[in-house]
Structures are given as C-alpha cells and as structure tokens.
C-alpha cells in the first residue's frame, strides 16, 4: 500500500538576509525578516526598498550627510520588558523652536513575534515607546488639544513641533525618507508621554515611558556609561513627586497623632488647684525696696510625678513686681528656685491707648514628685505707691502644648521644603514646553 502522503515541501527559513547595496555594493543586512519597508545603506546612506528582492533604490544623497553614529549599534540585542529586541534602525529627528534647532535620536527595535518598539534619546534622557492600541480621547474641535485622556489618565500638552528626519540608518517599518516631515505633539503624565504624529495625513499615537540611561546601558550590555542626562525632560519622573506625596502623608499621619496626643493629655491632665493665697505688699517709707521673705502654708501634691503651674496675679499699674519663688519639699528639703515678674504700664498718646506687660504670669515647674510642699516667696518692687495686691495659685498636673508645637514645626518644615523643591523641578520641566511658567498660556 501507499506509504502515506509525500512530505510537504519545507518552508523557506526566515533569517537575517545578506544582500548588497545596488548603489555602492556594500553588504546590507536585513534584520527584520521582511517586516521592514525600507533600509538605509550604512555605507552610502542610500534609502533602499526592503520589500524589493533587489533592494530598489528609493533615494540617494548627493552629499554625505553628517554622520551621527547611533549610541546603540545596529544589530545590538537586549531584553526589554521580558522580550528580546534587536536594534534595526536609527534616526535623528530635529525640530526648530524659536529659531533654535533641537534634535533627538530614535532607535527602531524589532522582535519577530512582538513586532516593533522604539527608544528615543534626547540629551541623555530616554523613552521606551510603543504604538497605542487604544485611541486617546482628545477634543476633536481643535487641531492641537491641550490635554488628552488615555486609559483613564489625563496627559497635559507639552509641545507641538514639526519634526524632520535629519539622519537615517538601517531598517524602518515605514518608507522612510530623509527630510520627511511630521507634526509631533507630546502630552505628558510623568513618567509617561503620549505622542501624536501626523505624517502625510495619517495620525498615529504612541505611548512611552521614561527610561534612565543606565537602564538602557544594562539592557543592551553597552560598554562605558551613558551620556549624562542634561536638565529636566518633559516626562522625567520628579524625584520629589514620590517624596512629595510621601512627606505630606507622613505629615498628615503625625499631625493626627499629635492632635490625638494633645486631646488625650488635655483630657488626662488633672489641673488640681492645690493652693491659693492673696497677699498685700505694703509700702514702707523706711524699707521701700524689700519686704522680707515669707513662707506659705503647706499643700500636698499627689499622684505621679508631674508638673506644677504657679500663677501670679497682681494689680500692678505702671510698676513692676518681682517675686523670688522657691518650691520646697517639706520632707526632703529639695527646692525649685525661680523668679517671676509681673509688670504693667499703660497710658494714652497720639495713637490712643497703649499698654505694655501683663498683670498675670504663670510658670510650669516640671517633674515634681508627690509630697508635702510649701512656697517661699520674696517679693521686690520699685518705690511707688500705692500698695500692691497679689495672689498666688498652684495647680498640679496641667497640660503643656509648647512641645507639640515644636513637633508640628519639625514635621511641616521638611514637607514644605520637599514641596518647594518639587515645584522647582516642575518649573524646570515646563520651562522647556509650549507653556512656560509665567507665560501667557
């Protein structure tokens, strides 16, 4: 019987083809396995039809174009987002803004299963770009919409310019020509950039993400180090944006904690009035300066070691009262010495009523253990009539909020500094755009 159907003829094996440039005879390697539309001879820079078996010449150059060797040589492979890609094409594109020419580089990457991908480089800033599968939403009524929405995120218009192909090398998925023009509009949402290109009426969108030169270098195993990134690029992620959010988050967290602590301590504070007494400082003709010192009755401080507030209230008017205090533990003799002054002056002048000082003073004595205490008071004043009445109040365990205020400052100052630096970064970014800060738009 028959031995089954004959084997099918094998398919031609796709691989990089070795051909010669019909213009100069130099070897041409087709790396994209027939997917490229055009290839530029690396030797004479003729643009050849990659679809044509004989590499028909599409464009030749009269003059040698200024050579601009790609930083990643054609044929280099690297693993990008889990897929191996080979650099197959290179292009320098330029735009003119206010009479100044800026140019950037684009690398065409190819994988026979995943297709094309692009790397762009400007002043050491890199982007990894692919064609959008979803159509970004823009206002159809204007030619250059100021924002675009893509996958639920809003991208801000950065710049629109006419880009020209200044130098081309290798293979391209479209029929590239030197000097070809495209209107390029970039929308940014760092670290991403959404780019619209209009070339001979066709609109195409691509989405890119910022890449550090060092990552490009390690992806393609390039020797040396990448060119230093200059300035701030349009979609460069701000080093402050994460800190910016983070620092305010931390601030908010600690601020809440602070408020809770303040409220907690405020509720917990006993504010025990443990002593109150009123005194009169009698003016004495012969002994004007000094009243002798005296001691108060004994009062008891209870509970855990905590603070004591001593409040002095007086009726001073246009004079001062200075009190040398000592808080003395009756049992141990331990003493806390402190001097307090109340002074109050007031009157009328051309600006109206004025006053200076206060008739009250209070002071916190921290960390006083429980026990029996008394105050020794030694008052002083100037030789002015009339007599001075004053009272002394002692309160046990009062809340103190001054430290919380310092804690608040310690929290908010770094947050403000980071915010300020972040704003500076954004100013640098947008100063290169069509919408510079402080500009008309």
């Amino acid at each position: 019987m028959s031995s089954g159907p004959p084997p099918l003829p094998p398919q031609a094996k796709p691989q990089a083809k070795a051909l010669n440039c019909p213009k100069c005879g130099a070897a041409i390697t087709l790396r994209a396995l027939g997917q490229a539309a055009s290839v530029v001879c690396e030797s004479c820079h003729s643009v050849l039809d990659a679809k044509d078996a004989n590499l028909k010449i599409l464009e030749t150059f009269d003059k040698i174009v200024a050579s601009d060797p790609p930083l990643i040589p054609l044929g280099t492979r690297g693993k990008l987002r889990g897929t191996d890609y080979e650099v197959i094409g290179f292009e320098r594109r330029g735009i003119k803004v206010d009479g100044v020419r800026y140019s950037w580089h684009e690398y065409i990457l190819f994988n026979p299963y995943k297709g094309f991908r692009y790397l762009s480089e400007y002043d050491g800033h890199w982007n990894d770009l692919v064609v959008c599968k979803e159509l970004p939403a823009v206002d159809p009524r204007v030619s250059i919409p100021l924002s675009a929405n893509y996958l639920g995120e809003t991208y801000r218009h950065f710049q629109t310019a006419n880009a020209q192909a200044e130098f081309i090398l290798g293979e391209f998925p479209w029929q590239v020509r030197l000097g070809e023009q495209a209107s390029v509009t970039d929308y940014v949402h760092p670290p991403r950039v959404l780019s619209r290109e209009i070339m001979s009426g066709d609109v195409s969108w691509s989405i890119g993400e910022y890449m550090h030169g060092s990552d490009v270098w390690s992806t393609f195993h390039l020797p040396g180090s990448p060119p230093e990134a200059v300035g701030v690029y349009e979609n460069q992620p701000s080093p402050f944006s994460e800190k910016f959010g983070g620092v305010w988050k931390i601030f908010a967290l600690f601020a809440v904690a602070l408020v809770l602590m303040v409220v907690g301590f405020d509720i917990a504070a006993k504010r025990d009035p443990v002593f109150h007494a009123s005194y009169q400082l009698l003016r004495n003709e012969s002994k004007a300066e000094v009243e002798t010192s005296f001691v108060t009755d004994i009062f008891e401080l209870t509970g855990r070691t905590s603070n004591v507030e001593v409040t002095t209230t007086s009726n001073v008017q246009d004079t001062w009262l200075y009190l040398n205090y000592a808080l003395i533990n009756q049992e141990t003799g331990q003493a806390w010495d402190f001097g307090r002054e109340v002074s109050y002056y007031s009157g009328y002048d051309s600006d109206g009523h004025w006053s200076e000082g206060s008739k009250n003073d209070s002071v916190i004595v921290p960390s006083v253990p429980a026990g029996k205490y008394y105050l020794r008071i030694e008052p002083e004043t100037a030789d002015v009539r009339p007599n001075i009445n004053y009272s002394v109040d002692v309160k046990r365990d009062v809340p103190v909020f001054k430290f919380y205020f310092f804690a608040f400052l310690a929290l908010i100052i770094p947050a403000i500094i980071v915010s300020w630096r972040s704003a500076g970064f954004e100013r640098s970014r947008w100063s290169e755009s069509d919408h510079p800060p402080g500009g008309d738009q």
Partner: protein
Amino acid sequence: VTQPTATCPNCGAKIVFAWSSSVQTVCPYCKSVLVRTDVDLAKIGQVADLPPDISPIQLNTEGLYGKQSFVVIGRILYEYEQGAWNEWHFITNDGTSGWLSDAQEEYAVSFPASEEKLPPASQLHAGQQFSWNGDVYTLSVITSAHFRGVEGELPFKFWDKDNLTFADLRTQSRKFATLDYSDEQPALYLGELVDFEDLKLKNLRKFEGW
C-alpha cells in the same frame, strides 16, 4: 467528529478539511486553489509560493481568545503600498470562524458582524465616526490593497482580487472594526487589538537566532 475529506482534482492528493463549513482551500502540494462544490472540489486557480519571512503565525498555530481555544486553518495575504499583512482564518473549539490579523506583528482578533447599513467606500474619510453595539468607532485609515496569496481553508471563495478597499476603525478601548469592500456588499468585522502574550500561541514558526 470525522473531518470531511476530498481529493485534489489537479494532483490527486488527499485533502482533509479541518472545518466542515470551509468553502475554499489550497492544495498544500500543488498549490491549486480549490472550491468545494456539492460533490467534489473544483480548481479555480493556482497560487505561487507565498513570499517567505512575514508572520510568526502559520497553519495549525493554536491559541486562546478569551475562553475559546482556536486553531489557524487558513490565511489571506494582502499587499499594499507600505507592505503586507496577513488575515489568518481560525476556527474556535465551538466551530466559530474568525480572523487573526497580523500587521507588522500588531495582532487583532475579529469576527464577522451583521450590520444592515454600511457606508459605501466612496463616502469614507478619516475621522468619521460610527456607532455599533454601543461603541463609538473612529475611522483611522483607509487602505487600498490587493490579494497576494491564500493558503488553507477559507469561509468564502477568495482568489486573485485587486483594488480592495479596507477601512480601519479604532475606539478608545481596544475594540476595533474593519470595513471590507472586497465584495459588492460591504462587510463589517468587529474585534479587538490583542497582545501577543495573551493569545498564548503554540505551534508558531521558529526564526533562526530568535
């Protein structure tokens, strides 16, 4: 399920159909384009060998679309000014016929949609919007193409056509549509742009060095 078989009227090779509803196939041995009649196959043409090195997909490539597994059983290769693209004809495991297109390794899966009123090709222009099944489609590009080759089983007779017009329509999601003016009656295909990884393709072509 027994697969329908027939004999190539040109070279006598045994032709096995993977899909019982196939209208056309190409003899893998002599490259005759064969159309099924009531009783047997009729040769309507002959294809040259397809140009090599285009798509990683091939006949018998298997994949997954959503929950449906599919197998590629045929293809149409189109050429246009800027290059070429493939429309791979597949059948899913429930017998539905669909298309996996590969244009420079940008992949899309689509199925024929029944739509009564479709615009004539002469009225199309980029930016035009259509609403089908509640989605808004924007016409992105109109392509003039011609037939370059066929392979395997197709759900219709298709052979040697020139001056074909296609319109691609995109949405703000991955949904896309194609208006196909190959026949007198325009046809609408609705589908989705897909990621290569998501298709979980098996039995792909191997590329040397990759």
